[in-house]
């Protein structure tokens, strides 16, 4: 990182209006969302709660935009010394770790369900007794196609898992191609970074463009898969634990890809404006870290949700 700014004091901003108003935005957003969900479940009108949530979201987004703009301006003005930049590096690294732990909760739930809860419900092992008493007919299986109580949770028709380990199968298997696309996007993003460090802005923008395009294609294919899952396979959020784990894991991943794509679009625009220098571009690096993280999560998903 920049060495020219290493001989300055640590910049501590005097006052800031952003966090307080961001908190207000956040409050109205979650209050509105909570009301929206309650109104939905109660079958009430959604108008008021939707507007509250939207207003909160817009206020929060506006503030965050301004906040980032200020930080970028300060960096360009040379206020940020090396030490301050290291604070951002630590901050981003540990933020990503917190995201890892968020996904760990859902992966942990999946492992527990597959290796313990469902077999126990099927009557297996030391804790199988309850399952045998409650639903003696129930057969443990994964993907779980027949739920313990199909009157409460409608059964899906079939699972999305790999049927056979053959080339011809994978060639027509959507999640496999999504894996290829996302891994490729990590590689193209790396080339963009290389181009940035080589001060080749044209190449940088080209590679960024390819990366963003791959991200959007991935999301499109995911949407297609969701349509398939709901329509053809009958896998829905309320079709039992297979659908629950499938949609929450892939859904939160998809949400993170959406956010990552948005961040990369912002980075693409910033690349076009020439914001980044070969020795000073942590905003870009942080976005790249985030994208690689999202990629790694997908590899975990592909192995544990689709392959196995």
């Amino acid at each position, binding site marked *: 990182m920049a060495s020219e700014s*290493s*001989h*300055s*004091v*640590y910049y*501590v*901003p*005097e*006052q*800031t209006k*952003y*966090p307080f108003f*961001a*908190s*207000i935005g956040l*409050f109205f957003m979650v*209050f509105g969302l*909570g009301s929206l*969900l*309650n109104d939905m*479940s*109660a079958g009430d009108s959604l108008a008021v709660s939707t507007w509250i949530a939207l207003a909160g979201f817009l206020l929060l987004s506006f503030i965050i935009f301004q*906040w980032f703009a200020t930080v970028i301006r300060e960096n360009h003005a040379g206020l940020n*010394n090396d*030490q*301050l930049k*290291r*604070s951002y590096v*630590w*901050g981003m690294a*540990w*933020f990503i*770790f*917190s*995201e890892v*732990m*968020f*996904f*760990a*909760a*859902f992966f*942990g*739930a999946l492992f*527990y*369900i597959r290796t313990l*809860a469902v077999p*126990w419900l099927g009557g297996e092992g*030391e*804790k199988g007794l309850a399952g045998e008493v409650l639903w003696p007919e129930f057969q443990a299986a994964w993907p779980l196609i027949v*739920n*313990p109580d199909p009157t*409460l*949770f409608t059964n899906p028709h079939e699972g999305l898992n790999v049927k056979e380990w053959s080339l011809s199968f994978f060639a027509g298997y959507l999640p496999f191609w999504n894996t290829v696309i996302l891994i490729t996007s990590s590689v193209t993003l790396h080339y963009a970074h290389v181009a940035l460090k080589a001060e080749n802005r044209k190449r940088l923008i080209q590679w960024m463009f390819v990366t963003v395009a791959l991200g959007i294609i991935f999301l499109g294919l995911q949407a297609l898969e969701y349509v398939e899952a709901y329509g053809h396979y009958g896998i829905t*959020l*309320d079709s*039992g*634990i297979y659908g*629950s*784990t499938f949609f*929450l894991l892939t859904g939160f991943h998809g949400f993170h890809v959406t956010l990552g794509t948005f961040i990369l679009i912002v980075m693409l625009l910033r690349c076009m404006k020439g914001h980044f220098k070969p020795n000073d571009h942590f905003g870009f690096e942080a976005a790249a870290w985030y994208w690689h993280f999202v990629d790694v999560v997908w590899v975990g998903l592909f192995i544990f949700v689709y392959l196995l």
Partner: protein
Amino acid sequence: MSSAAIDHAHDHDHHHGPAKGITRWLFTTNHKDIGTLYLWFSFAMFLLGGTFALVIRAELFQPGLQFVDPNFFNQMTTMHGLVMVFGAVMPAFVGLANWMIPLMIGAPDMALPRMNNWSFWILPFAFLLMVSTLFMEGGGPNFGWTFYAPLSTTYAPDSVTYFIFAVHIMGASSIMGAINVIATILNMRAPGMTLMKMPLFVWTWLITAYLLIAVMPVLAGVVTMMLFDIHFGTSFFNAAGGGDPVLFQHLFWFFGHPEVYIMILPAFGIVSAIIPTFARKRLFGYDSMVYATASIAFLSFIVWAHHMFTVGMPLAGQLFFMYATMLIAVPTGVKVFNWVATMFRGAMTFETPMLFAIAFVVLFTIGGFTGVMLAITPADFQYHDTYFVVAHFHYVLVPGAVFSLMAAAYYWLPKWTGYMYDETLGKLHFWMSFVGVNLLFFPQHFLGLAGMPRRIPDYALQFANFNWISSVGAFLFGFSQLILLLVVIKCIRGGKKATAQVWEGAQGLEWTVPSPAPYHTFETPPDPSLIKAQ
């Protein structure tokens, strides 16, 4: 860490004093202001959570239903736990971290000052959302602070949705706060402040921050599953769809057990600062304190199912979680030994902070021992969900965590305000709290062993005597806390001028700056010769 970056070539920094009026507090980026905000917020929540506790103890003063109906009683137990854990104890430690860590490591401020403000200001809104559920149709959360499914999903009041979102945003606040602490400690230490020279309060907070970042997202994950079970028909915690309510407990306690160490490790740091000061000796076994803290943090991740022995799990699981839990007694024992060894042959005086610190060592150890009792799986089958458990965790949290916070407040008040607090009132506060807390919680051990279940508004007649003693203790303890409020207000308004050193035996960088600490400190790093090994 390199010291190259902290070069004080530019001494022309244009920092002013605090801004005037309310905007000082709304928009501040100053670690001392934000620390003060956290401390006042947590004290307000302490009084609110304490009020809920007094409702509980008033109802339990006699057998029978006197004041509140059982559903409201359940809301009180739930809100008391949530407010005390997330609103009082955790923010109080974050407030101390804000105030003291930059002063202790010679940093100009926290690493990310704007985010620091955001971490704080989310909290009042989060608690506004959470406490407002009490006034909603159907009432507030009534499923206990552990919010076990399906009580918190299938059978929950509608307000649970707001509770979930409140947990989400306070979790975001905690994660941001923890990231800030880590970045500050790893990146902002003055030249010469090596890791093994850091005061133990800084060490314990570094490790606590790691725990926070590791487990708060898991809490966010588990409440999200609840949200989807409630509103979108998923079956994570419903066996009819192939899920398992026990899964909730595993996920919750994977968060919940490290969470209890989040509330006690900084307390260890505080006590490790106060005891050497008033024993006028160096802390015994500094290195072993650091390693013990790290061991406790590591073990906290592999003991969670000891909260669930009676729920049912394979024998191998019960044995593993029993032994792993007992192992925690080893590093904890190292700490207690070190504190006692520090006092051994010390030139001790007993000012209020020291009184609270010694009470901490004794009473926390009682809570630790009952913890070992509860770790014994077959014995836990007897103790589980009785008042014995209530007594256990209140002994580690009230005369444990809360006493350490009182000790910290008295210890650093002169540094914060520039005046000495009223020692007579401080001692009165200590003795009333000490007597109150033991009257309150000690009889609950006997109640639990005799079989009184927790979280009930009414009980069998044989429990009446110990319950009224406990309730008397509760009101004594509760109202004694107003003395602390009085002491703090008096101390802010004036009194005997405090010197920079304040306490004769105190060590560390925070005692090298004037009292009250100037608005900005260590804008240029302190002289490395001031930094001594602990």
